[in-house]
């Protein structure tokens, strides 16, 4: 079947309402960042014990989801599943938008965001952060070329090759993101080779959840009904990714539990960590993993569009909870300098650190999500990222 891509009409009140709301949220997020930069991080909940706070939770989630959002395109270009081909441009667009949103939040949370040019001109190649600057920019360039190859007829013959390149690059990119934590020697929760593959699996699950939400939303509002078979396939795929992610989390905690020196950390995260324990069991495990799995696999609910939307929302919510526990919970647990000793000091040694995000942090983070929305909503109107008809996708090969 010939695929015709067509932009959204984008003239309805609903379209402008959505765009306006997202633009407003983005603006508020930028204003929050300006406020933070003007007054310093004193206006955030961050301190010298919890140095990476809520903006990092949002930013890392978005960056991780970005590489995973490209997955649908990779299914077509790399794994030869041509049924996904009509959806590949949307997948690449989302990858771009999510990365831009995530990096914006990350950048605006720097102590000196005005020195971005320094980060672009001074590289310490032993730093995974510096390598990530290159991986992120390279990914954006590659995905733009990939989109061009998919959407410009003359370039079509190259789309598989570029798609393969983008697939390899995204693996490197998420390896880089996971290694931000994996390459930390001093912190008990990190410093593990597992972080890289764990983040890759998480990216598949977060990215597909975001993709499903946007696809179902666009299909609903543009009145281009989505093929039920395609919807079922994507839902099943999401279930597989959620289960795989849960498996990696299980192995991570089992390994830690086996090591006596990690006992304290695990007791903190899994039993006594207050908010972090709640977020882990209730947010990450129950709402973010178990419930979506039931919704996506149960014969009745897996047929329901509303239930699939709910499952995707839960995966995103659970993912945010997971990032919160991973990034902030792991900092809250005190560093162990003297094993077998009780320690105390004026600098929080030996005690669990407190952190409560402030409003500007929430606004900056949510602004990042809104920015992703603005990019996607505008792009769908300007260029044909979606097929004109989506009701026969699964039979298209």
């Amino acid at each position, binding site marked *: 079947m010939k695929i015709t891509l067509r932009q959204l009409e984008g003239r309805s009140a609903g379209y402008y309402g959505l765009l306006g709301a997202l633009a407003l949220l983005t603006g508020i997020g930028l204003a929050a960042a300006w406020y933070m*930069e003007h*007054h*310093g*991080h*004193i206006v955030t909940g*961050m*301190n*010298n*014990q919890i*140095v*990476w706070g809520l903006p990092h939770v949002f930013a890392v989630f978005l960056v991780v989801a970005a590489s995973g959002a490209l997955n649908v395109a990779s299914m077509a270009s790399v794994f030869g599943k041509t049924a996904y081909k009509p959806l590949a441009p949307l997948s690449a667009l989302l990858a771009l938008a999510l990365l831009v949103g995530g990096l914006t939040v990350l950048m605006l949370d*720097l*102590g*000196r*965001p005005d*020195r*971005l*040019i*320094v*980060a672009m*001109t*001074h*590289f*310490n190649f*032993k*730093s*995974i*952060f*510096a390598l990530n*600057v290159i991986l992120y920019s390279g990914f954006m360039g590659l995905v733009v070329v990939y989109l061009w190859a998919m959407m410009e007829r003359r370039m079509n013959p190259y789309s598989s090759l570029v798609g393969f390149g983008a697939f390899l690059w995204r693996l490197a990119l998420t390896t880089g993101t996971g290694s*931000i934590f994996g*390459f*930390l*020697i*001093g*912190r008990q929760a990190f410093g593990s080779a597992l972080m890289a593959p764990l983040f890759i699996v998480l990216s598949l699950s977060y990215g597909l959840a975001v993709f499903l939400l946007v696809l179902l939303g666009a299909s609903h509002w543009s009145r281009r009904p989505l093929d039920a078979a395609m919807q079922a396939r994507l839902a099943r795929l999401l279930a597989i990714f959620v289960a795989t992610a849960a498996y990696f989390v299980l192995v991570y905690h089992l390994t830690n539990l086996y090591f006596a020196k990690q006992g304290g950390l695990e007791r903190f995260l899994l039993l006594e960590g207050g908010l972090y324990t709640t977020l882990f069991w209730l947010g990450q495990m129950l709402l973010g993993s178990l419930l979506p799995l039931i919704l996506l696999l149960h014969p009745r609910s897996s047929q329901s569009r509303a239930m699939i939307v709910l499952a995707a929302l839960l995966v995103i919510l659970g993912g945010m909870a997971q990032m919160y526990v991973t990034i902030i919970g792991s*900092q809250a647990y005190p*560093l162990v*300098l*003297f094993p*077998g*000793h*009780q*320690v*105390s*000091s*004026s*600098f*929080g*040694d030996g005690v669990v*650190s*407190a952190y409560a995000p402030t409003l500007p942090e929430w606004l900056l983070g949510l602004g990042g999500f809104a920015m992703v929305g603005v990019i996607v909503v505008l792009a769908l109107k300007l260029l044909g990222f979606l097929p004109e008809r989506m009701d026969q996708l699964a039979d298209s090969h």
Partner: protein
Amino acid sequence: MKQAPTTSTPQPSGQTDRRGFLGVAAAGLAGILLAPGVRLIEIAQAAPANPVTGANPKVRWGMLIDSTKCASGCTDCVTACNTENGLSGGTLPTDSQWIRKIEIKEVKTGKTQSLPMMCQHCAEPPCVDVCPTGASFKRADGIVLVDKHICIGCRYCVMACPYKARSFVHESLSNQKPDVPRGMGTVEGCTLCVHKVDRGESPACVQACSAAGHGAIVFGDLNNPESEISKRVASYATRQIREDLNLDTGVRYIGI
């Protein structure tokens, strides 16, 4: 756009030199567009190319801290550090603390000890490894510092340091010491009083501890076998904190 000053020669009245005007306007516009870029390049190049000039690579500055001489509750080293470096001395979670006293108690025996903790000036500093811009660096003489001109405030070094030796400046500063540059939005930590060391003096904490009669901290060149610190390291059992990480710290401890 309003009339730009075009040329020094007076124009005949009513006859503006349109081409000249356009040329200057274009040049002006180009200037406006390019100036920020040029300014950014200046900022980018503002960092000295070789920040380690002057440090002697044959020297390895270090400290030996005898916790048996360190009195519980005594904070003379901390006060001296704050005074020397212009720190507020506040102990809120957002305040900078370059050196802190840690009280430790062995859980099994109840044995208590007190010791100062600060940047351990590692030979293999994780903060330097992770810093994306190279702002976190180690001088040839082993002193680990932050170049405040190229620190972007990402706090990755704070995450990487096993000793919690680094602080992030959360709010604007006033009354800074000329020898000790600091800045909001950048990371900082013990400099081993590099400005004093380069003048041939000992760090402020060492002087204060000695003046108080404790003499719990010895400062010197670990590479010079004749130095007091080297002799003591050679004759007593000393420890590095988190030896398991194999960072080869410049700060050693006795009695823990």
